C-alpha cells in the first residue's frame, strides 16, 4: 500500500490546516440547525460526518464497544463536467468493534466516489451508503448495516433526545468565528441488533451516541489535533466535551454540551472544560503514544475516563489517512461509574486533524 500517497489524498479530502472555504459555504452563527431537514446531507459543504459510537452488551453481559462512521467530502468545486462520474463527492466509512474479552479491535473501512446509487448521501434525511454499508432512517429509528471484513454490525437505534451543540447547532472550533461547524448529537440512543465476529452472530443491546456535523473549515491553521468525549450518563443525562490543541500542545479552543436528565441543555464555554491527561499507552503498530486515561472537568462534573481496553487505535490510513485513537471509555468518579461513552484522540502522531 502506498500509505504516503493516501495520506496526501486525505490531506486534501479532509479539511486542511489552511481553514479557507473559498467557494464553499461558510458556517455562520445565527443559522440554527433545523431537524429533521438537517439530518440529511449538506453536499455543498466541504466535510460532513455521521458518527455513531456506543456500548453494547452481549447476552452474557460482556461489553463491546462499537463505532460506525460515514464521512462525506467534497474535495473540489464544480467543474462544469456533465459526466455522471463528476459528482465532486467522496464518501468514506469506518466501522470498528472493541472486543475486550478477546483483546481485539475489529475494524474496516470503505471509500467511494458518490454517484450511481453505489455511494450516496441523501439530502433531507439520514440516509448514507457506500455499496452495502449504510446508515439509514427507518421511521423514527436509524439503522446501521455494516457487513465488514471479518465482522459485521446490524444495529437499530432508537433516539431518545436531541442536542444542538453550541448555539443552536453552531459549534465554534477556534477563536475565529469562521472556525466552526454545524453540529448536533443524538445522545442516549437505545441500541438493539446483531453483531457478527468471525462469522458468529450475537444479539446485542446497548446505548449509543450519534454526532452529525458539517462544515467547510472547522479547524484553523494553528490547530493540530483534538480530544473529544461523548458520554451517556447513567442518570439519563449526557456530556460532550472537546478541546483543540495547537502544535505546542496548548489548548487553542474548547467547548462542550451538558444535558441534564430533565432535558435542560447547557453549552459549555472554553473555560468550563478541562482535559488532564493521565496514563499513556504506546501503540505497538504505529509507536504513537496516546493518553488513554484522563481527568475531565466539564459542566460541573469531575470525571476519570478509563478505557474499555488500551488498544483502540484506528489505523484508517487506507481511507481517511488518519491514525487516531477512538475508544469506549467508562466515566468514573472514584469507584463509582457515572456513565459510558467514547473518547477520541487525534493528532498525536502526524499533525493531522480529523475533526
Amino acid at each position: 500500500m502506498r500509505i504516503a500517497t493516501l495520506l496526501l489524498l486525505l490531506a486534501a479530502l479532509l479539511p486542511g490546516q489552511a481553514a479557507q472555504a473559498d467557494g464553499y459555504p461558510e458556517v455562520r452563527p445565527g443559522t440554527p440547525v433545523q431537524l429533521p431537514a438537517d439530518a440529511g446531507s449538506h453536499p455543498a459543504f466541504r466535510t460532513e460526518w455521521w458518527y455513531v459510537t456506543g456500548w453494547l452488551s452481549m447476552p452474557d453481559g460482556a461489553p463491546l464497544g462499537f463505532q460506525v462512521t460515514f464521512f462525506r467530502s467534497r474535495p473540489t468545486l464544480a467543474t462544469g463536467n456533465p459526466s455522471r462520474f463528476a459528482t465532486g463527492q467522496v464518501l468514506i466509512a469506518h466501522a470498528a468493534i472493541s472486543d475486550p474479552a478477546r483483546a481485539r479491535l475489529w475494524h474496516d473501512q470503505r471509500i467511494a466516489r458518490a454517484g450511481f446509487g453505489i455511494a450516496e448521501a441523501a439530502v433531507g434525511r439520514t440516509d448514507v451508503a457506500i455499496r452495502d454499508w449504510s446508515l439509514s432512517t427507518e421511521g423514527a429509528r436509524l439503522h446501521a448495516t455494516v457487513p465488514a471484513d471479518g465482522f459485521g454490525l446490524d444495529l437499530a437505534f432508537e433516539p431518545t433526545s436531541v442536542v444542538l451543540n453550541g448555539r443552536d447547532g453552531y459549534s465554534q472550533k477556534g477563536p475565529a468565528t469562521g472556525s466552526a461547524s454545524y453540529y448536533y448529537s443524538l445522545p442516549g440512543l437505545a441500541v438493539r441488533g446483531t453483531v457478527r465476529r468471525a462469522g458468529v452472530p450475537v444479539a446485542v443491546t446497548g446505548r449509543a451516541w450519534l454526532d452529525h456535523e458539517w462544515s467547510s473549515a472547522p479547524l484553523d491553521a494553528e490547530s493540530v489535533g483534538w480530544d473529544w468525549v461523548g458520554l451517556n450518563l447513567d442518570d439519563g443525562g449526557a456530556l460532550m466535551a472537546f478541546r483543540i490543541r495547537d502544535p505546542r500542545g496548548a489548548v487553542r479552543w474548547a467547548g462542550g454540551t451538558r444535558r441534564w436528565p430533565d432535558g435542560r441543555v447547557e453549552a459549555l464555554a472554553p473555560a468550563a472544560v478541562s482535559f488532564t491527561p493521565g496514563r499513556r499507552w504506546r501503540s505497538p503498530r504505529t509507536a504513537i503514544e496516546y493518553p488513554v486515561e484522563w481527568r475531565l472537568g466539564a459542566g460541573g462534573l469531575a470525571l476519570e475516563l478509563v478505557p474499555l481496553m488500551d488498544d483502540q487505535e484506528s489505523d484508517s490510513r487506507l481511507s481517511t489517512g488518519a491514525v487516531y485513537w477512538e475508544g469506549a471509555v467508562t466515566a468514573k468518579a472514584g469507584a463509582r461509574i457515572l456513565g459510558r461513552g467514547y473518547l477520541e484522540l487525534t493528532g498525536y502522531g502526524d499533525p493531522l486533524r480529523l475533526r
Partner: protein
Amino acid sequence: MVSATLRVAFAVFAAQVRDRPLRLLVSIGAIAVGVALAAAVHLVNESALAEFSRATRELSGSADLVVRGTRAGFDEALYPQLAKLDGVAVASPVLAREAPLVGGGSLPLEGVDPLAAAAIRPALYGELAGLYVALQEPDALVLSARAARELGVRQGGTVAVQGPAGARTLRVVAVLPEGATGRRIGYMDVGSLQWFAAGLGQLSRIDLRLRSGVDPARYATTLRLPSGVDALTPDVEETRASNLTRAYRVNLDMLALVALLTGAFLVYATQALAVMRRRRQLALLRALGVRATEVRVAVIVEGALTGALGGLAGTALGWMIAVLTLRLLGGDLGSGLLQASTVAVTARPVVLVAFVLLGVFVAVAGAWMPARHAATIAPARALKAGDDEAIPGPVARLPLAGVLLAAGAGAAFLPPMHGLPLGGYASIALLLAGGVLLVPAFVGVALAHAGAPRAPIAGLVLARLRGAIAQSAVSLAAIVVSFSLMVAMATMVHSFRDSFERWLGEVLPADVYLRLAPGADTWDLGPAEGAALAALPGVARVELRRTLPVSLAREQPPVTLIARPLGGEAGGLPVIARAASLDASLPRAYVSEALRDLYGVVPGGSVTVPVGGKPVRFAVAGLWRDYARSTGSIVVDLLDFERLSGTRRYTEGSVWLAPGADGEAVRAAVAARLGGGEALQVTTTGTLRARALEAFDRAFAITYAIEAVAVGIGLLGVVLAFAVQALARRAEFGMLRHLGLRRREVLGMLAGEGAFMAAVGVVYGLLLGLGLSVVLVHVVNRQSFHWTLDYVVPIGSLGIVATALVAAAAVTAGLTGRIATSDAVVRAVREDW
C-alpha cells in the same frame, strides 16, 4: 566398462580437439546456429507473450472478472447494475481511449475512478487514488513513467491532445513511479475523460472484484450483459491474446526447427568426416581390445559433447539475438499482431536447459550413423592398406517412404486442432521425411538418365556418382530439406503477397482514403463532414463508412463490423462465394472467410451481430476475402446499420476524384477541410497501397531471414559432405594425378560432381517444396489465418536461388578439391602404414 568407454571417448575427443580444433568448431557452430535460431524465435515469442500477459494482468489487476465490450464501449448504466450485485465486492469503471497527439502519434488514455480501481489493483491505482483530488480537475492527466519519458514531459508540464472539439492541453499533475506500470499510458479521471473524449455515458470496461467464495467463471455466466459485452476472467483475456498470435508464432517456431534439423545433417556430415579420418585409429582401438559397442558409444558421446557445447553457445547466442530482435523489431517480430510495449527477454531456466538438450539431441542424432559405422569397421581390413571403403549412406527404403508420403498426404486433410494447423505441420514433417528417404532413388533415376558422356572426366564424374549413390544422397539430404522448405515458404509468401496485392486493388477502388487514427475514438465523422467533402473541388463522389469491433463469441477476439454502402450488389467487395437464396426479410451481410472457419457462418445462413446494443440477425449474402483482419469481419449495408443503431457517425471514408483532378491536391484539401489533425489520416490510394505492402513485407522479413539461414546451413552441409568425401578420396585423386589428370581436371571433376548433385538436389527440392507449398497454402495458411490464397509459384526468384545454389555447390565442391589436389595428396597414394 562404462568408465573405460568414457575414457576412450574422452581420449578420442581430446585428440580430435588437439588435432583439428577448427573442424570441431564447425560442428559446434552448426549446432549453435540451429539452436540459436530456434531459441531466439522461441524466446522472442515467449517474452512477447509474457509481456502481453503481464500487460493484460496489469490492466485487469487482481480483478476476478473483466467486463468488456468492444473499443466502442457500452452504456455506463451497466456499471451501477453490476456494482450493486450481491456477488460483486467492487466494480471499477474504465473508459479507454487512444488520443491523437498534436504533432503526431497518439497516447492511450484510460479514464478510471481511482478509488474503485485502487480497491482492485492497489499496486497500480493506489498511486492514482493518492492523486484523487488533483485528478478531479478536468484537464488533469497522470502519465506513466514511460509515457512521460517518451513524450519528454515532467510533472507540471503539458500534453497537447487532439480532442473532438479541437486540440486540448492536458496538465501533467503527476508521473507514476517507474515500477507502477511498464505501459506508455496516461490516466485521467473517468468523468474527465468522458467529457473530454465525447464519451459521456460510455465505458469500455468494468473490472470486478467478487466477494470471496464466488467462483468467477461460474459467476460470469450468471451475469446478464448486453449483446456484445462479455465478462471474462483474466485467463480468458490471455487466451485471446495468445490465440491471436499463436498461428504466427507456431509458424516461426517450425521454421526455426527446420534450421535446427538442417544443422543435424551438418553434424552428421562432420561426424562422418571425423570417423572417416580416424578410421584407422578406431580400428587400432578395436584391435587393442575395445569392443564395437564401446567405439560406438565413444563416437556418440563425442557427438553429445559437441552438441552440448553447440547447445550452450547456441542458447547464449539465441538469447542475444532475441534481445536485439526485441529491441529492433518489437515483440511481435514485425507482424503487428501484438501491441506489447517494451519487451524484455524472459525465459524460465528449464526452457534454456531444453534448448541446450535440443542441441545435444540433434548432435547425437547426427552422430548416430557414423557411430554405427565406426563400430562396424573391420579392424584387420581398415588397418591394412588400400581399404577405400567410404562412408555409408542411408539406403533407399521405398516402402517406408511410400507409407510416409501417403500418411503426409492424409494428414493434410485433418481439421485444425486447438486452432492450430497441427495436421498441416504433421503433413509437412511426414512428406519431408518420406521425401528424404526417396532422395537416393531420385538420384539413381537422375544418374540413369544422365547417359554416357564421351569426355573421360565427365565419364569419371558420372561413374563415381553412380558408384556411390547412397553417399551422394546423404550429402543432398540437408540441401533437399532446407531448399524444399524454402521453396514451400517462398511459394506461400509469394502466393499471399500476390493475392494480397490484387486484393488491395479490389478493396481500394477510390482515389483518396480517410480514416480515424487507430483507436482515435476522440474524433468523429458525421454526415455534415461527408457533405462538406463532396462539395470540395475535384471531388466526384464521397463514401463514408463505419467500422467497429464487435464480439461474437466469448473466447474469440473481436470481429470487425464494417458498415458501408453496398448498393444492389456487393459494392465492389472481393466476394468469393454467394448465397444461392436469401432470407429477404433480414438485412444483408457479407462475411469474411474467418467467419466461416471460426463461427461456421456460411452464405445463405445467418449471423447475429450486436448493433446498437441489440443482437441483430443478418442474412449472409456472400463470403468475401479479407486479408486485413484475420479474426474476421462482417460487412453490412450502411443504411441498415444507421437504421439499426440509430447513429450516423463514421470512421472511414473514400473519395473519388473528378476527371482531371490531382490526387495529392484533393488529399490535402480533404485533410484541411476536416481538420482533425492527427486524429484523421488522409491518404492517397498509392500511399496506402505502398504502406500496406511495406507492412506485409516487414511482417515476413523475419521469415525470409530464417529461411536464408536454413538454406545457408544446408549449403554448408553440402560443402562439408564434399569435404568429407574429398578427404576420403585423397588416395584416389593422388592416383588420378599419377595417371595423368591435370590438377584442374581433378578440380573440374569435383566441381562437376558438386554441380550435378546440387542440380539434382535442387530439382528434387523444388519438386518436394512445391508439394509442401500446396500443404502450406491450402492447409497451414488457411487454418492459421482463415483466408484462402491464390496459388502462385514465384518462378523467377526460385530460379535465381536454385541457380545460385548449384553454382555455390560447384564452387565450394571445387574448393574442397583444393585439399584433394594439394601435394600432400600425391603422397597419399603411399599412405600405407
